[in-house]
């Protein structure tokens, strides 16, 4: 269980996370939504210990240190691999540094994304889409029980993404937990089991998708409701700009 308890993170005078408390159970697939600057990346990086923060974060009851950090993997749109190394060299690197590295899953995902033929090429020669795919492959193959993904598919085409969600659902073990930050709400709505909404560093919504289904509400509608989205703001803005009553 990954537990965040009253986590607050400030950058100077700006509050990035404000008293965030969140619990992720094993086996959950959680979508993390929020506008740009809502604190999604800060939240994930605080879990990984990249930032100092107030409050505490525990993994299976223990503080996150170098001893248990390998039980969390991280895929980011900024990419965390070595651009000059090949995919094959990364496989060796992960194999030697992560005891639980899943080589079979790595090979299978490389094959699925049609990257096997390019496994000896340095990653800087990959397209943005391929880099994203490889970043996700590494996160899923590390052998961690908690997988954090921060907008991993920015730049990938929709067919690629949809296929990936299907594969991901197929390969995840029951004990593996995924926290996925994305703006692609509709795409992941069938894939996640729970949605957490961040707004200006605070959690403003946390709901299971089955509860949403029972209430007959879509995920997009729920998010708009929580954000108090003003549906008429576009027409208001256009009226103000054009002087016409729309």
């Amino acid at each position: 269980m990954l537990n965040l308890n009253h986590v607050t993170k400030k950058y100077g005078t700006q509050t990035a996370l404000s008293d965030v408390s969140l619990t992720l159970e094993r086996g959950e697939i959680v979508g993390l939504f929020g506008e740009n600057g809502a604190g999604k990346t800060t939240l994930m990086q605080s879990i990984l210990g990249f930032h100092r923060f107030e409050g505490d974060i525990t993994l299976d009851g223990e503080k996150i240190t170098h001893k248990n950090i390998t039980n969390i993997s991280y895929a980011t749109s900024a990419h965390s691999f070595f651009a000059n190394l090949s995919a094959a060299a990364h496989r060796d690197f992960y194999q030697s540094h992560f005891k639980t590295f899943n080589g079979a899953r790595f090979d299978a995902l490389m094959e699925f994304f049609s990257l096997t033929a390019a496994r000896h090429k340095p990653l800087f020669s990959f397209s943005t889409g391929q880099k994203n795919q490889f970043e996700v492959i590494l996160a899923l193959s590390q052998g961690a029980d908690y997988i954090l993904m921060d907008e991993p598919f920015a730049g990938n085409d929709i067919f690629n993404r949809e296929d990936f969600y299907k594969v991901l659902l197929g390969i995840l073990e029951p004990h593996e937990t995924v926290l996925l930050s994305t703006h692609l709400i509709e795409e992941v709505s069938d894939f996640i089991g729970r949605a957490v909404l961040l707004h200006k560093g605070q959690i403003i919504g946390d709901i299971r998708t089955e509860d949403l289904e029972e209430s007959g509400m879509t995920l997009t509608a729920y998010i708009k409701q929580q954000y108090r989205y003003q549906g008429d703001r576009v027409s208001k803005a256009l009226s103000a700009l054009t002087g016409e009553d729309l």
Partner: protein
Amino acid sequence: MECPDHHDGHDRYDWYHTKPTHDGNGKQHMQKIRALGHRIQAAMKRFLTHHTPPGMNMRGEFAFFIIGTLLAFLYALGYLVRFADAKDALYRYPYGGRKILDPSAVMPDFERVFDCAWAGFFIVALCMTGYILYHYLYFYQNTKSIYLMRRLEQRWELHRRCLTAPLIGIGLSLAFAALCFVFAYLIYRYATPAVCLPEHAGMSLRGLLFGVGGV
């Protein structure tokens, strides 16, 4: 004493002579040296793979170190010229070209003759400290591989990979500087006529590090 393998027709080393008994042994010897070379090369490669930032091309750094060290050696050789000039000044050349030691002449202080001959090695060492910063910055270039390094169980992995090669370079440079100093002092101490040595060694750290203006 008869060597048991001497006449068996095989290319082997004579067991009590050090030279090969057949021409083929020369080739075998070369092969052994080549194999040893390959093993050393492989061991170095393995060492560098685990002690440098992953994927970083170290050839530039290696070349810089080699060239820098060679230049530092060349600069250090200037000491020999200064020493020879200073020693030459201890002599008089009255008539006929035969030099005579002037017993009242005094050799300039060591630090004056030395005149920062080891400076090149310190400059190389200083540049190697710059590589430490460069190695750390490497993990922020193109991608954020720092995120991966900070997620490793081996908490010193990042520092090991950033520090090892530059520290070896710094260590070697300082060792060369020390050797340069020792050799220079030994030459000064034992190649200068004893009567011409100054009473005091003339060695202040400041003078040795920053020079005192030469002879």
